[in-house]
């Protein structure tokens, strides 16, 4: 197990380095940052001087090396636009994005899994057919449109919920949370729904497909033959076996929540990393972009590791293998 985790860690580092490299080599093409760092009547000489001082003229590999070395110490450089250390900027945004993703993830799972199970067990039923179709509408609309329509309806027409931002947040160390204030919680509702919809559908369909598979297996039939009541068959045996494969994909899905948050955050002006990133792309704020992508990769490898470990704990067969 230990050696396994260690191996995974090594892999993760490789993955992150690759991501960093790819990302970094792409930035050189996304545009010239200088224009956003100076006003309109700044002269060419000054612009060039700035470029030089930023080391943007150094050979690529040198820039990359510098980046990796600093990143290793958690220093992602200074944002061109905000002239603050990127690490501080991200620090300030991290909690917003994570809380949003977390709530959405919970929503997606809490609704997705039971719905999937239900539609699998009652696969012929009218209701489950309804659920299936309804869930599709969720993924048939672009996220941003869903967001805006929600704002229009609940924010402008009904005036029930806030249309933007996080509301009041409480700071716990560098972590700010919206969970502790009424307005914070209210502001969470619309964005998290917008963000969760897509994943919810995916998870639900996945669970359904897997469940149908498992229900066909012999051991389910045998469990029935042993006289076990449906409840036991479905939830004790079938569901548990369903979740094994579901774990991996769900893990990845939830990981991508953090990235998908980009859209949701810009629609709701949610002060998270995604918003920071999309802003950074427009302003060609390379340090922020680099940091963000590495963060994303980081989250993914973490999630992947958690998933694998879960796997080991859930599935005895794997445990046996790892033992040998």
């Amino acid at each position: 197990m230990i050696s396994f985790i260690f191996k995974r860690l090594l892999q993760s580092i490789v993955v992150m380095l690759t991501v960093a490299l790819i990302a970094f080599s792409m930035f050189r093409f996304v545009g010239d940052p200088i224009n956003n760092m100076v006003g309109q009547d700044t002269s060419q000489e000054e612009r060039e001087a700035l470029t030089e001082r930023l080391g943007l003229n150094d050979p690529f590999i040198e820039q990359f090396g510098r980046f990796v070395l600093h990143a290793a110490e958690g220093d992602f450089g200074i944002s061109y636009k905000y002239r603050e250390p990127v690490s501080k900027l991200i620090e300030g945004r991290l909690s917003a994005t994570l809380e949003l993703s977390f709530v959405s993830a919970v929503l997606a799972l809490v609704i997705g899994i039971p719905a999937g199970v239900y539609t699998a067990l009652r696969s012929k039923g009218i209701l489950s057919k309804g659920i299936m179709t309804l869930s599709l509408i969720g993924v048939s609309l672009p996220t941003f449109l869903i967001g805006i329509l929600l704002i229009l309806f609940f924010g402008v027409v009904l005036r029930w919920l806030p249309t933007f931002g996080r509301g009041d947040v409480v700071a716990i160390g560098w972590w700010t949370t919206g969970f502790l204030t009424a307005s914070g919680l209210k502001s969470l509702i619309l964005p998290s729904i917008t963000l969760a919809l897509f994943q919810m559908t995916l998870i639900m369909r996945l669970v359904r497909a897997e469940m149908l598979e498992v229900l066909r297996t012999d051991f389910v039939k045998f469990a029935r033959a042993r006289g076990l009541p449906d409840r036991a068959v479905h939830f004790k045996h079938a569901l548990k076996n369903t979740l094994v494969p579901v774990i991996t994909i769900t893990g990845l899905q939830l990981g991508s929540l953090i990235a998908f948050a980009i859209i949701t955050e810009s629609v709701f002006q949610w002060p998270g990393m995604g918003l920071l990133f999309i802003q950074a792309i427009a302003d060609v704020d390379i340090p922020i972009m680099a940091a963000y992508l590495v963060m994303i990769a980081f989250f993914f490898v973490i999630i992947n590791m958690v998933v694998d470990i879960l796997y080991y704990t859930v599935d005895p067969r794997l445990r046996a293998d790892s033992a040998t």
Partner: protein
Amino acid sequence: MKLRTGLLVAVAAAAIAVAAPVKAEIFKFAFQGDLSSLDPHSLNESFLLGTLGNVYEGLALYDKDMSVIPGLAESWKLLTPTTWEFKLRKGVKFHEGQDFTADDVIFSWQRAASEGSDQKVRAAGIKNITKVDDFTIVVETPAPNPILIQDLPVLFIMDKEWSEEHGTTNATSATGEDKGNYANLHANGTGPFMVKSHQADVKTIMLRNEHYWKDIPSNVTEVEFTPIKEAPTRVAALISGELDLVYPVPVQDWERLDAAKGVKALAGPEARTIFLGMDQSRDELLYSNIKGKNPFKDQRVRAAFAHAINLEAIKEKVMRGAATPTGEMVAPQINGFVPELNTPYAYDPEMSKKLLAEAGYPDGFEVTMDCPNNRYVNDEKICQAVTSMLAKVGVKVDLLAQPKSKYFGKVLETGGFDTSFYLLGWTPSTMDAENALSSLIVCRNKEEKRGLFNLGNYCNPKVDELTAAIGSETDQAKRNAMIREAFQIVKDDVGYLPVHQQPLSWGVSDRVTVNQRADNGLDYRFVVVK
């Protein structure tokens, strides 16, 4: 440190004390962009300067109507064509309690000229400052500079000792050499409002400065600013009553705002002029099917373009009646504006076709147009409209609309003026026509840093002479005459195709009244909460 926080607390406490009778009035507003820094010298950009103008002040100030009035300087007079004497205001204190003196002015000027500052150009307008006494200074300019004063409201004064104490004697530079400049996240000015908290691109909160050196018309005790990028979200936030003011508001949403109860659209002409430029210097256009020659060198072609564009339609449909079609490169608010030159070129497709034929392009030609899509009001839509209008006279325009970062990277000097036909907007930062002439209209000259934003390099020696003269002419009457002549020439040459003065478009809640300044600046002093 301890002492100063003490002071700050004291100030704040006093603020409450004085404000006691008045109840706390919080004013919340949103803008599309954000306040990238609190350092007054970090970026020469209108919103940043406009906002920090509430915290920091210059020797002179803008009044409601942008006329320049005394600020930290009580008065000034011209000693020689190149030297000015300023009497500084006594008894002014910075937010953290330090006294304002001549040293602060000199320091601030030096800082503005320092490495990483984006105000170098303005700082360069001053050759030297000598201190006569604590409240008298003499300013030397490199050449006679009649509009020196125009620059002062945005040349902000910082406290010397405060800056030295926090090692921020240089302007915040983006290079990260100074890891997190103190002035980037903290402010200590003399202005009517002081920064309470600031998280870049998230939220900035300012408190009323109860110790301001003159009384503040506003009854606002706290200002809360949030950047909101998406227009629909911004408008929604206003209509839903979460905010008191949002800007800019898409012009097409005006009706909706006026229809919705509790809010209204607040419009006004901005000092910014939107215009189209054409590459008139290269012998062959970079992006065209005409090879070997440059159609835009021919005045008739430029005129043909001018007559092909229906500015009224753009005003009505794209700008929803909110713009002012114009024939001049500067707006009415600008010193030197010539009313009679403001009438646009007539919309006359037939004439346009005829001119093209005369010029030898009976079937028109192809050209690529560069256009920003997130810089000016409906910029991309204007460009689209222009393309379809030119199509009607046979000119096929390929539209290349990009975000401002990419757009400017291409068309400006950095990109080697890589364009044949483009849309640009300009607000003379000095609010004086000379700035427009010397930046946009004179022949491009890298060495002398003139005409660097004359992207198409329209070049007429006569205009150059005039501009040079205007630059040093201190007699306003003579000066205006020369400005008029220069603009007349440009108009006859059809050097540019002015489109309109774009509207200021704000959405305001009925519970507040605000003053909409022509440079799109929001001056908290004039915000009143009902």
